[in-house]
């Protein structure tokens, strides 16, 4: 199919990838991405000059696997990050998990892992360090214990997969393929807390491409690959991952760091090193998302220090299609659901029928090659095969 040409008078209006129920003609001045304000201050609140919409008219849905026949359709772009939400049941008493966009479960390996020596977490300025070491009961136990429950849920569960070798990754993914309740795979090639495997795949473009391609051959599930910030040039790796057939990229995993126990004069964490997360790493995550969104066409899911609506908007402007909330859940378990509401309210106040309008608004002109840009090679429903 030939790329459909559209008249695009302004850059900021060109970010609408899907037909939305209320499409307005592309007239008038470009809606300026206004300074984020969560609350509409009245009918005239639309800083874009457009009339405010009702919150119900805002469409927050997003497809994280536009290249797959069935896609990975989320009701909203707020996900919970792997490792911070267990298997979706732990917070059940205080959070209505069905309202989330998706759940990324704890990193799952082929065989059970006991994880690293305690202590495993500590607070740092504006963030925290963790060195869990991929403790998990193994893919069989995860399927046995949780898959049947996930299958009854409205919210998609994306299983985070980790391993020490390509065979490990493929083994886990093969086992997950076709299991009801598993909506997608997030390939964790960037865990800084395990000795072997993990990070080695994320720092090398050939290895990242190889593991992605191997997993791609093993499953038809939507495949998202999680990038590490602990690399020299994240763009090359992102391109390799896209070329190998990933449906989406999530960025970023934690930054490698450490803390000292001053009283005992030795490293505080049992594993010496840990992964830094929280608001402290948001600027790094923004930079990575901004860079990656310029060089890939597949959706980018931002992770890193999301703690308020402003952070969500920043990542959307930088080119992310969705965001994952992680560390902030520990202090405020209700935050992800609140962000969904706040984002809808914000869009309505701006007169936008969907948050997708602002995706990539901050990217340099002409650099927006992404799925939401104008040179997208196919329309929705046509499989994208590199």
């Amino acid at each position: 199919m030939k790329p459909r040409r559209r008249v695009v008078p302004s850059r900021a209006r060109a970010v609408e990838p899907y037909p939305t129920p209320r499409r307005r003609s592309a007239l008038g001045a470009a809606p300026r991405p206004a300074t984020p304000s969560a609350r509409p201050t009245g009918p005239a609140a639309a800083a874009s000059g457009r009339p405010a919409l009702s919150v119900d008219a805002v469409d927050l849905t997003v497809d994280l696997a536009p290249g797959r026949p069935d896609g990975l359709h989320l009701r909203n772009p707020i996900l919970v990050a792997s490792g911070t939400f267990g298997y979706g049941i732990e917070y059940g008493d205080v959070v209505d998990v069905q309202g989330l966009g998706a759940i990324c479960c704890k990193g799952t390996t082929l065989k059970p892992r006991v994880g690293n020596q305690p202590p495993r977490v500590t607070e740092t300025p504006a963030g925290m360090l963790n060195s869990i070491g991929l403790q998990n009961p193994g893919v069989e136990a995860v399927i046995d214990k949780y898959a049947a429950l996930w299958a009854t849920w409205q919210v998609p569960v994306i299983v985070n997969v980790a391993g020490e070798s390509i065979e490990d990754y493929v083994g886990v993914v093969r086992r997950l393929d076709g299991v009801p309740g598993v909506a997608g795979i997030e390939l964790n090639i960037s865990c800084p807390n395990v000795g072997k495997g993990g990070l080695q795949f994320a720092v090398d473009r050939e290895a990242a491409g190889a593991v992605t391609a191997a997993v791609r051959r093993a499953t038809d599930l939507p495949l998202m690959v999680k990038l590490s910030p602990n690399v020299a040039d994240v763009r090359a790796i992102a391109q390799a991952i896209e070329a190998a057939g990933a449906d989406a990229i999530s960025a970023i995993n934690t930054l490698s760091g450490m803390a000292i126990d001053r009283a005992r004069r030795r490293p505080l964490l049992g594993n010496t090193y840990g992964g830094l997360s929280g608001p402290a790493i948001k600027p790094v995550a923004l930079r990575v998302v901004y860079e990656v969104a310029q060089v890939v066409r597949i959706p980018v899911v931002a992770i890193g220090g999301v703690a308020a609506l402003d952070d969500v908007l920043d990542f959307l402007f930088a080119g992310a299609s969705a965001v994952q909330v992680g560390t902030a859940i520990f202090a405020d378990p209700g935050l992800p659901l609140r962000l969904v509401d706040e984002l809808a309210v914000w869009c309505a106040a701006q007169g936008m029928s969907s948050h997708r309008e602002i995706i990539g608004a901050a990217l340099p002109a002409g650099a927006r090659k992404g799925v939401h840009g104008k040179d997208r090679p196919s329309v929705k429903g046509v499989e994208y095969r590199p």
Partner: protein
Amino acid sequence: MRLAGAELVESRLILPDQWLQTYAAPWLTAAGVRAGQFVHVRTPDYSGLVLRRPLSINTIDRASGHMTIHFRITGKGTEWLARARPGEVIDMLGPLGRPFEVDPRTRHVLLVAGGLGMAGVRSLADEALEAGRQVTLLFGARGAAEVYPSSLLPPEVEYVVATDDGSLGQPGRVTDLLPEYEAWADQAFACGPWPMLSALAQLATGRDARLGVARLGRRRGQRSAAAARGTAAARRRAWLQVSLEQNMGCAVGACLGCVVFGVDGPQRVCREGPVFAADEIVWEGASV
């Protein structure tokens, strides 16, 4: 488990850097909270902190809906909490964790606390007295200045103090007092620094055999089949239960940050604990 606000009613400095705070939290006291459980306390956004702080529930007053927490200022989170003023509403998640399990046949309860470990076992003193049991509390501190004031304990509790420098009570470690009470106590419950708990666990090993204690009401050979390790039933039969402390992330079992290694593999202090039977934990080599 609920997430709600608790209003600070009273804040008292009871020992150097140690605070006792009373909160009005009827939603918590009505939730069937038991001794040994904890709350996960959030500092406000402007504190700049990203993690909640797990704090033992010190006393529970169901009639008034008040509960107290006892903590020492060890960092920014507790420092902020110590500065909270009465009337302030603090965001709390709780009750969390599994409580102490007291055998219904237990008459004599021995509590062992080291320093701030008092916060972990204090509520069990109330609970045991309420159930008509006799309570002895062994308390260890570095010196007289850090000894928990007896005025804050119910008068029925026999309070025995040991200090490292001998400035008050028995000179020496609190663990040195244990052999004296080993035979008297039907069950013991401890909270304190890891070396203290480790020493207690070692002292308690083989206690039943040493004293010739007969375990009645159970047929021969049924010991392991009756209750799997880690269940409430198994803990109820354990002579020594310990309440552990660990850095926490989520406190609901999601992040696996607060794990300690047990005989049966990694155990989450927030979910399987904070109370464990002493024989569930691998004490050697580990130090938290």
